């Protein structure tokens, strides 16, 4: 793994700016990787061994993703919308997992670690660099049961929404009132369709069109 300053510089570049969240995120990710015994998670073979659950979508999240190499598209980055500055690092090979949370106390200690810096922003940056790990983070050993439909790898499950005819992958469908539906049809969408609805495929669907076996090929 590259050194802290190099990772921070590159992470800030990818993220768009250098901020306290970058420092916290890089440190958290480096610590997480160390705890689960991975020193090069951005490359093969370790890239296939790591999954990270992040609990917030803020600056630190990008830093964690940069350092660990986890990505939504690889299914190695999971977002749990808890609004908590925390992430769980999992080694799929050993099943070891650690949840690391940024402490609120660390925010109060900023002036203790860089009192000579007058500018608040710069003081934060320096303090988060200097602060000991045990003050900056709270570490928990955890067990995470990842269901098969959330694992990386080729698509194993696919079905068709009986209302709109759209393919739904990875067991994200909903069984509601005797119908297999996509989440938008079952619970309502986050968007509103403007103009005419297009449910052209819906009428051709059979009553119970579900594909139980594993699919062998990616789709």
């Amino acid at each position, binding site marked *: 793994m590259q050194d802290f300053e190099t990772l921070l510089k590159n992470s800030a570049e990818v993220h768009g700016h250098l901020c306290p969240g970058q420092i916290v995120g890089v440190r958290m990710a480096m610590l997480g990787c160390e705890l689960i015994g991975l020193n090069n998670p951005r490359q093969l073979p370790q890239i296939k061994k790591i999954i990270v659950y992040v609990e917030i979508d803020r600056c630190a999240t990008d830093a964690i993703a940069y350092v660990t190499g986890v990505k939504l598209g690889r299914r190695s980055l999971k977002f749990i919308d808890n609004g908590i500055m925390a992430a769980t690092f999992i080694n799929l090979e050993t099943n070891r997992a650690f949840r690391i949370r940024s402490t609120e106390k660390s925010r109060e200690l900023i002036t203790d670690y860089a009192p000579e810096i007058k500018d608040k922003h710069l003081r934060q940056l320096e303090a988060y660099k200097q602060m000991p790990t045990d003050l900056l983070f709270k570490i928990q050993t955890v067990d995470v*049961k990842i*269901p098969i439909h959330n694992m990386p790898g080729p698509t*194993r499950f696919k079905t068709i929404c009986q209302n709109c005819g759209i393919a739904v992958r990875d067991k994200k469908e909903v*069984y*509601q*009132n005797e119908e297999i539906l996509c989440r938008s049809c*079952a619970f309502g969408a986050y968007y509103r369709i403007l103009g005419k609805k297009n449910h052209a495929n819906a009428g051709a669907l059979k009553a119970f069109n579900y594909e139980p076996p594993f699919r062998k090929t990616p789709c």
Partner: protein
Amino acid sequence: MLKQDDRPRERAYFQKIKVKDAVGLTLGHDITEVRPGEYKGPSFRKGYKVQEGDLCHLMRLGKRHLYVMDLNENQIHEDEAVIELANALAGPGVTFEAEPREGKIQLIAAYDGLLKVQVDPLTEFNLIPDVMCASIHNNTPVKKGLPLAGTRAIPLVIERDILDQAVSVATASFPIFAVKAFNTVSTRLIITGNEVSEGLIEDRFEAIVSRKLAAYGSTLAETAILPDDQDEISSMVRYFLEAGSDLIITTGGMSVDPDDVTRLGIRGAGVDRVHYGAAVLPGAMFLLAYKGDTPIVGIPACGLYHPTTVFDLILPRLLAGELLTTRDLARLAHGGLCLDCATCRYPACSFGKTG
């Protein structure tokens, strides 16, 4: 009767060999590594194919001999077999762990809802030798992540044709396990009783019904308090139906006293069918009527005094969109007796477990 004889079949697949000769062969057991203060866990898992580069590691762990498995193409390791079994059993709303633990896989709820188990096909599945699946009860309300069933191949190694037979039985009745999502329904409540209507006592039904609905994500849209008047009750049921209710709940007036006219009021509202009486205690005088697909429920007064009644068995099924029949109410008989424990442990008890 046990499904298989007790011959120690596993031994036929095991071979004790020297570590240096193990390359390319499959481990028959986990190998645990302990690094004091740092790590304790399996370094090599059962089913792992030993590589040349592993030999030094194994020697460091003090291993001089290993049990390895020598499988032909028709013999499937339990960890591989159980993934196929779980996949065949898990329908919509049901997922499972990615890695078997001790040869078992748990099926788990992918979201909150009502567990549906096809009991007869599950029995057929379990009649096949060398496989098993045990579950919680049909029609249990479940939360996301709750274990629903566990399945495994019973021997360490299972024959391909037996595994295929088990998968075939499960997929023929697919889905043996499914979770129906609860609908968020527009619910209206009619509280009947002269004593409440005239303000002699304060109603307690509304809070109870609200709490029970909230457990499944629904709320009360409207509440009416009426006297024991058949015509007024009929009018209000009709009004609530026209208001677009998905579910109408009435409370009280279900007994046989001259003032108990709620069920007559419901009948008078022009409903299509009425099922009066359920094979459940408490809750024998429960009523379920339908106008089209809209259920109208009559909760007897026992709903005030018992924490758990027939209403708790029926409500999740109605919210899951099920259209219930007289037979469904009669089927509640087996398991329909509440033991009225000092501290209610429902649903962790026999109540409502109709099998």
